[in-house]
């Protein structure tokens, strides 16, 4: 079947099989190497991408669900202005993710920042996968997300935005 979607502000029209996952398409066809296939079971979150502003594991999501969706990966996100908030927050707090998990952590942070529900340490904690990359502690991640939230709020309040 044919799917039409927006990946990092570029429109793609692809002919796909029913069993193809988004992960396979993004990695193999569209060169998004920041996404990693680790557990292939939605456990670890290494393959998180933003689909319609929500972080989803791309290893579990079939490509046919991409129809009319907006997909963002770290490759696109890193060129947006909002990325600076996350980057700054990661560098200012003790949170230093290893580069293997950094893309997925950035995606997770971005999805949390975009979500409408209030961001508290317990709500952030809930979104952390159980099989968490061992490069850092959860508490540091929570601190980093909270700081990113503040930074983004400040930036949005600034008149020149």
């Amino acid at each position, binding site marked *: 079947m044919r799917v039409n979607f927006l990946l990092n502000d570029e429109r793609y029209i692809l002919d796909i099989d029913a069993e193809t996952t988004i992960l396979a398409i993004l990695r193999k066809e569209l060169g998004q190497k920041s996404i990693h296939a680790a557990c292939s079971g939605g456990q670890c979150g290494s393959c998180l991408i933003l689909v319609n502003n929500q972080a989803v594991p791309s290893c579990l999501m079939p490509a046919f669900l991409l129809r009319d969706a907006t997909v963002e990966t770290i490759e696109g996100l890193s060129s947006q202005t909002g990325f600076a908030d996350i*980057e700054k927050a990661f560098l200012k707090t003790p949170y230093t993710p290893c580069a293997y998990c*950094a893309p997925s952590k950035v995606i997770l942070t971005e999805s949390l920042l975009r979500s409408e529900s209030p961001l508290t340490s*317990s709500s952030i904690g809930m979104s952390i996968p159980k099989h968490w990359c061992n490069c850092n502690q959860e508490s540091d991640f929570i601190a980093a997300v909270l700081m990113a939230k503040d930074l983004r709020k400040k930036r949005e309040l600034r008149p020149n935005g």
Partner: protein
Amino acid sequence: MSINKARPLRRVVQEQNRFLYNQDLDTPWEMALIRLDHQDGSHFSLGLPEDSADNKVISVRPGHKSRTIHIIEDAIPLFAEKTVQYAGQVACLAIARDSKALQALTQSIKIAYRSDDHEHESDGGLLMTHAQKTISFGTPNAYFDQAYTKVTSRLLIDNYQDPRREPRGALAEWKDNTLTVWCSSAWPHMVKRCVAEATGLAQRHIVIISVPSSYLPDRFLIDSTMYACYVAIGAVSIQGRAKLFLSEAEDRRFASKQSPIDVELQSAHDQDGKMVALRSTVSIDLGRYACASNEIIQHLALGLTSSYQCPNQEHRLLALATASSPSFPNSMLGMTLVQEALEQHVQQICSQLALDPILWRKDNLLQKGQECPYGTSAESFYAAHEVIDSVSKMSDFARKHASCELLRKKQRYSLHAQDAMHNRPRGVGLAIGSQSHGLLSSFELNHRARIDLTMSDDGHLTVQAPFHAHYSGLREPWLACIYQLLGIEERNVSFARFSSEDVEDSGPSRFSRLAALHSPLLAQACINLRHKIRSRVHPFVARASYVNQKRLTWDTAAFRGNPFLGRTWIAAVIELSLDQIDLSVSVDSVCLSVAGGCILNTESARTHIRQSVIACLDWLSSKLAQPNLLSTSTDLYASNLGHGAKRPTIQIQFQQPDTKPELQARFAHAAAIGELAFGAIPAAFHNALVQISGSSFTSSSVDSQQLFQKLYQALDQEPDHAG
């Protein structure tokens, strides 16, 4: 001083994996993991083709059954895993012309068993003893005969794996009697050496090209040696090009693993509990090709002899080559593994002889000027006492230890929920670890370390080092040093890395041992450059290098001539508690004290140590019921929706000597903290587990069933739920 910290993250994101995907070699052979239908999932192993001229038939060195494998042309199995874990099937690494041939190979290999073949069972896939060494010091046998008490312990450490994945792949080409291997490694010389050992080629025929491709900040993998060996073997066996790119789903079988090790320790004690003789048998399984076995043996010996004083020692050390996939000690060439075993032995001594673990350690540590099998210990040894004192003070160890002991002795753990909820079994464990510059530099630096300074006519200084100063947190202290010695400001200094081909092994710079080794050289180079500038000797280029002698002794002239000078110490106290309901263990606190010299960048060191601690704890907990210790507690209702659950606090304290500021700038006693945590954390964790359960474990990977057996089955009764 501002640092553009934003760059690394973005750059790594952009650059990772470029190597593996963009390398364009024409039609290399594919190497891949194949799975063979297999019934009982027990031992199985393959050897290399015995006769390469006619490789249609491979005689298999059996795990416990002998068999012959008929294979087809264009596909060769290289070796298989000894213990089958992957989806209940034998996993075997093979090389084939294309995927079709590989498929044909998979189908053609059949495992036939002959049940009468019992003699092979005993050898367990053992090929040979690759290296061995016996160290004797004093007269241990005599002391064992007349000892007041003897303590024996044994520890088996499994081959565990770093759960963090690295890019998996390498390329190799055998052409014109030269083997070229492309891989991403921070240690190209180590790779070269291992490839030479694995393929049987001379080192001059091997070229290693290390390609930046890493998730780690300095873009080189720590240990991609195994992959490099695999492709090298593949390329040599087909006399052409080989490519290994393990698929994401199946790579874990052949990702590099920690070598399994078996350490047996026996100590003799006098009436005061002092250790008068120590005997050990250590065997480490390095897999099929037993890379760097001599170095590893040396480090095992060093680990066993350089912590505690003992006038009579005998150590028998074996490095074995077995028919399983190659493996390698994860840290410090195995030194941390024996340190772990030794620390657990100390715990056993203390509990068996009812001695205080702190006092015993302090009394029995090597003292200044004491003879040990590897030379005389010297001045900076006091640090070991300091770290023990500070960590016990920080964690209130003595009180906690006593109360945990009391709790355990008073009541064998109750089988009632009321008590289970309120009196969680607790344990606190202490361990020390150390690392030194001495021997390690001989291996990892490929006998030399180098810093180049180049000053252009307009006063711009370029610093060339084998690693990125940015990533190791060294930029700031190095800039400070340059400013102090040369007066050049930050804006006029740029850092560069030597080109990767045939450069000295850098090691990942986050392992600050190497950073620490290079820092005195920077100071030296600055002084050299200053002389040149003053006497106007053009060009303004200065180099400081350190050449280590090739033999395995401590030749540390550059570091004031003492093997123990660069020695760093760590003491760790870990507090654990056990959830009696789901038998999961949680880490309540981790206290660390680190000493050894002046830490160049405390923040960076702290972050690094913390990461190593988390990694260690993650490995240790992988077999316990709770898959990730540091993640959410399963005791959901105990907290608000399961989160905000108690996380272990990791406290780190650095013991730094009071060095004068000008000396500090020259990094007189730069500390190396690289793999310290790996030495002390596993032992402290196990010592705490031992305190919980009341008896020691012989294996490093403790699971919930073992815990249950130790805790409750000893009662020899049905779980009684009477209130």
